[in-house]
């Protein structure tokens, strides 16, 4: 390989953090993965097996697009369900398509792989101390982004001037790209937190609160859920979501232990199914008006969780709306169902 160019499949706004980390640790070109579009989805599903879950198709599509842009090293994450096995099939598919590249998987079978060994094998020029330092900054950055986005989801629906939240959010992300040090990052965060709190909002007396639970990729990548959160905000619904990268990486371990002590379920159910069941219970107990459950179609752990979520919601008499997102789900269909759900919630409130 003459010159190394790194790329990665993207998810939500974390692209900022990942790009920041990679561009500072590796002394080589980093290629921005192109934003997911309908074309990405089309390419992805063309080369994927038929009944694999949707994230496989999206990430494969992004990989092909960034390989076309000239990348030759690609990072892929992995998780607890079949996500951990994606990389092997994706590598084979791409090799069969004639691409010359390396695919590096970070987590396999729920276990972290030995990164140092892999970096050595692949001859990636990296700086050890820098990697640790910028790794810390990136972790902090992700935490800040999650905190701000949580605030945005809850308050965006009350904004007086349209798009004021989104604009400021974009400005913050742009500024975070130029972070110089840990302290600088903290300054940025506090500055924008103040600015966000200053945005004019008009909170009505009665408003609808909805909790979103479900499969992580569909929740966090706005393209795959048809900007569901934005749609809800436009309707004037305040949204609560638990799953974000901070939760998955740092909080989940402790939460799951706590959850298991409550004896609603006896065992862990794979991926985030258990968390979602308990979050549903939390939402029901805290007077949320409705719950939206989202997943990519054929997501095995979530399918098993659905009947239990349904049962809990039935006990507390809270309505649930199930979405199963696929390439072929139409945006209008999603919108119609969402509007009907909203109307129902509104009528219940009266």
């Amino acid at each position: 390989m003459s010159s190394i160019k790194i790329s990665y499949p993207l998810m939500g706004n974390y692209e900022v953090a990942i790009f920041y980390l990679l561009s500072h640790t590796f002394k080589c070109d980093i290629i921005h993965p192109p934003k997911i579009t309908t074309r990405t989805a089309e390419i992805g599903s063309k080369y994927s097996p038929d009944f694999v879950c949707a994230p496989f198709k999206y990430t494969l599509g992004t990989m092909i697009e960034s390989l076309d842009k000239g990348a030759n090293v690609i990072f892929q994450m992995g998780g607890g369900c079949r996500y951990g096995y994606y990389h092997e099939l994706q590598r084979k598919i791409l090799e069969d398509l004639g691409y010359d590249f390396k695919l590096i998987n970070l987590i396999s079978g729920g276990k972290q792989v030995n990164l140092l060994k892999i970096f050595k094998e692949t001859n990636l020029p990296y700086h050890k101390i820098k990697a640790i330092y910028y790794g810390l900054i990136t972790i902090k950055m992700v935490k800040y982004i999650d905190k701000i986005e949580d605030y945005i989801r809850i308050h965006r629906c009350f904004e007086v001037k349209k798009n004021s939240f989104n604009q400021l959010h974009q400005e913050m992300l742009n500024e975070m790209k130029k972070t110089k040090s840990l302290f600088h990052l903290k300054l940025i965060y506090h500055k924008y937190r103040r600015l966000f709190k200053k945005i004019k909002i008009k909170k009505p007396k009665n408003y609808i609160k909805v909790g979103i639970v479900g499969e992580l990729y569909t929740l966090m990548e706005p393209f795959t859920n048809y900007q569901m959160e934005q749609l809800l905000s436009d309707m004037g619904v305040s949204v609560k979501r638990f799953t974000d990268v901070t939760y998955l990486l740092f909080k989940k371990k402790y939460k799951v232990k706590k959850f298991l002590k409550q004896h609603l379920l006896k065992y862990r159910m794979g991926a985030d199914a258990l968390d979602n069941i308990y979050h549903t219970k939390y939402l029901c107990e805290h007077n949320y008006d409705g719950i939206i459950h989202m997943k990519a179609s054929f997501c095995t752990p979530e399918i098993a969780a659905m009947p239990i979520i349904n049962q809990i919601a039935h006990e507390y008499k809270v309505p649930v709306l199930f979405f199963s997102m696929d390439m072929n789900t139409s945006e209008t269909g999603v919108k119609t169902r969402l509007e009907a759900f909203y109307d129902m919630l509104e009528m219940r409130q009266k």
Partner: protein
Amino acid sequence: MGIPKALHYYYYKELWEPFFKKLDIDLIISPDTNPVMLDNGTKLVPDEMCLSMKLYFGHLVYLADKCDYILIPRIDRFDNDNQTCTNFLAIYDLASKLFDTKILNFNIDNDNNMRGGLFKIGKELGFSSKKVTQAYKYAIAYYKYSLKQKEIEQSNKLLSDRKKVLLISHPYNTYDSLIGKPIIKLFEDNDINIIYCDAFNIQKTNTLALKLSPNLYWKYSRDQIGSILLSDKVDGFLFLSSFPCGLDSLVNELVMRKLNKPYLNLVVDDNTSLAGVETRVESFIDVIN
């Protein structure tokens, strides 16, 4: 006590049946799958769940009012590189929410094994540990013996001169009377021997599988695809999976890309017609011949 004739049963029937018989427990094993069970199962769980799980819940519906206990184990993993299907993790909790019948349950993961599980159940039913030990020893001997028998039978089959096809599929699909049986019959009517992938030595296939796919961490998939490397005398491969099987969707696709012999990929779901399958099987047989 009832055992549903689905999923785990096909893996461990030679272990469980003698164990519980030795303890003098009345075993009710649900009959072969019939369309009524499929119907019951489909009504109970979400439509997107895989066909084999729907059948499992169909069997549970059949058993629910006929016995005092139902055996529903939760088999998670044997070690980190030998995990099972994600659906298997959820079976117990799902069943305990959907049915009122008492459930006998044990768990297999990094810290617990099959022996511990069966001992736990023996104690729960009120047997002395001496009796349980006896029963377990008997059962495990029988289990090993039957595996050996299967292996010998298989190696004889491999030596025969007839055309052979290796069937790669989970045992709970292979031996199910709705999914696998009719398809196997089609092959046998056409004078073709079916080699079963689960009749090989499991330890051997499990390690061999890593040659085909170095990062595979599902035990049952590893047991299956390892058999491909042990059967170089077969004339073709038949992949059979239930729609939408999470493991097969990835593993089979990967393996198929590495084969250099004719293969057929059949995916069965709850409204597959046998006529369509017949046509595909016939053309596949023509290719082999």
